[in-house]
């Protein structure tokens, strides 16, 4: 189980990075393309809320990789 936790640590870090990239790139492309008013409210809120959470998720992955949860 400890080996699985260690491997999953890498998975959680990659998952955080990819999700953060997806959120930011989608927000930029939608707002840049002159999306309707609701998109320019929706995406900044999503970025403001989820980027710190994704940072926390990456940190969780880092602790897992460093065997803090063994």
């Amino acid at each position, binding site marked *: *189980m400890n080996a*699985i*936790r260690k491997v*999953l640590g890498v998975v959680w870090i990659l*998952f955080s990075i990819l999700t953060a990239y997806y959120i930011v790139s989608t927000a930029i492309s939608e707002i840049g393309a002159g999306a*309707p*008013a*609701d998109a320019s*409210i*929706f995406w900044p*809120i*999503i970025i403001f*809320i989820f980027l710190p*959470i994704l940072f*926390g*998720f990456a*940190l*969780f992955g880092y*602790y*897992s990789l460093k065997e*803090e*949860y063994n």
Partner: protein
Amino acid sequence: MTKEKQTGIWTVITSSSVGTLIEWYDFYIFGSLATILSVKFFPQDNPTIAFLNTLLTFAAGFIVRPFGALVFGRLGDIVGRKYTFLVTLILMGGSTFLIGLIPSYETIGYAAPLLVLLMRLVQGLALGGEYGGAATYVAEHSPSNRRGFYTSWIQTTATLGLFVSLVVILLTRTTMGEESFRDWGWRVPFLLSSILVGVSIFIRLKMNESPVFAKLKKEGKTSTNPLKESFGKKENLKMVLLALFGAAMGQGVIWYTGQFYAMSFIQKTCNIDHVQVNYIIVFSLLLGTPFFVFFGWLSDKIGRKWIMLAGMLLGVLFYRPIYTAMFNLADLEKKTEVAELYNIERELSAWEEDPAKQVATITTARTYSDSTVVKEVRRELDGKPFGDAVKGTILSSSGFWGMVLLIFVQVIFVTMVYGPIAAFLVELFPTRIRYTSMSLPYHIGNGIFGGLTPAIATRFFEDSKTAANPSGDPLAGLTYVIIVAAVCFVIGAIYLKNSYSNE
């Protein structure tokens, strides 16, 4: 446990639960009235955007909950549990009452949605401080082998708060009639909050401080900086992260899907009549609520972990089939209309003598072979449309109970993830920083991952509309819920210990 102590614990549970229930009631009347509030407080150029803005304002209350958890959690760990959740109760009651007094967009323009947003933020902050305090307070009065059972009573309050909000709305609506309710009656449930909060403050003032915290304080062992201790020390921070990603975030999405998203889905996607929607949810919640206590009790016997994770897994596996069945129950394309029963009624407003000023109400009713009725009510003034038409499907008796059953099953998933979680979170952290440490992951999980479910799911649904499929995929919103619950299940299964109690 002696009989005297048992009486004491029930007083503690009752006084804590009543206040928490009222706070949830205050918080949820906004969501239950989202459709009407979107008309009252937002410009109506585009009704979909107005509804999305209402959902985002509703979500704003959830977004600030973690900040409330930090502010009041810190206060609760320094000053004490009792006074902190008295403050949160006053803030919640005051802001809810004021929402009921805000003039509409038609009267004060953009000041209306801004004021609503401000009051919603205060509500969110207050709730962020309330729940952790109540759960900690009850847990610190409970013996360790009964902690799951006793704290599960606090867990019923969120659902009961939603239940009471729906009952109050239903009663107000049916007492004053649909037109008056849409006009001004929607304010009554907000204003009523001041009375409920007053009663709760009176009860809470008589409570004593948590004995465990009081002892800690007497010995001078309380934390001087709970925030630094909770999140600045790796040993505790890693448990906060585990509580969030291995339990709270999955719990949040399951909770909101089973209750709020289900309600929004049958209202907006299935187009069920508003009053029938409220009855469906009320019955489902009423039948499901005892299971919070059951699963809390069971968690004292077999541990918290697998009950919570089983609830998440069942959601991941069964949400799509359940929502497909819900959609099919109301799908008019699968029903046959009985042409002979088509009915149209035209009624003129009796109070206006001048025929040119009389408003005609035209009610069209289409009946289908399974007794489902689709009613459309529109108004005309001088032969031209006057106001928006209201259209809703009234399910047959079998359709109604079928829908109740499908939502009841989702409420069972909710009770599995939510019933044991207060005990689980309390046991994860030491007394001196418990209020702060458990409140933050709970409110990020429940408030943000869960509270944003309707807004994000509506967004997924809107994005699924393409030129080839202009009506979109009605189940697209579930993608978000299923991904979050599945990730949380995997983390919980691999990283969590199956806790019973922690002396």
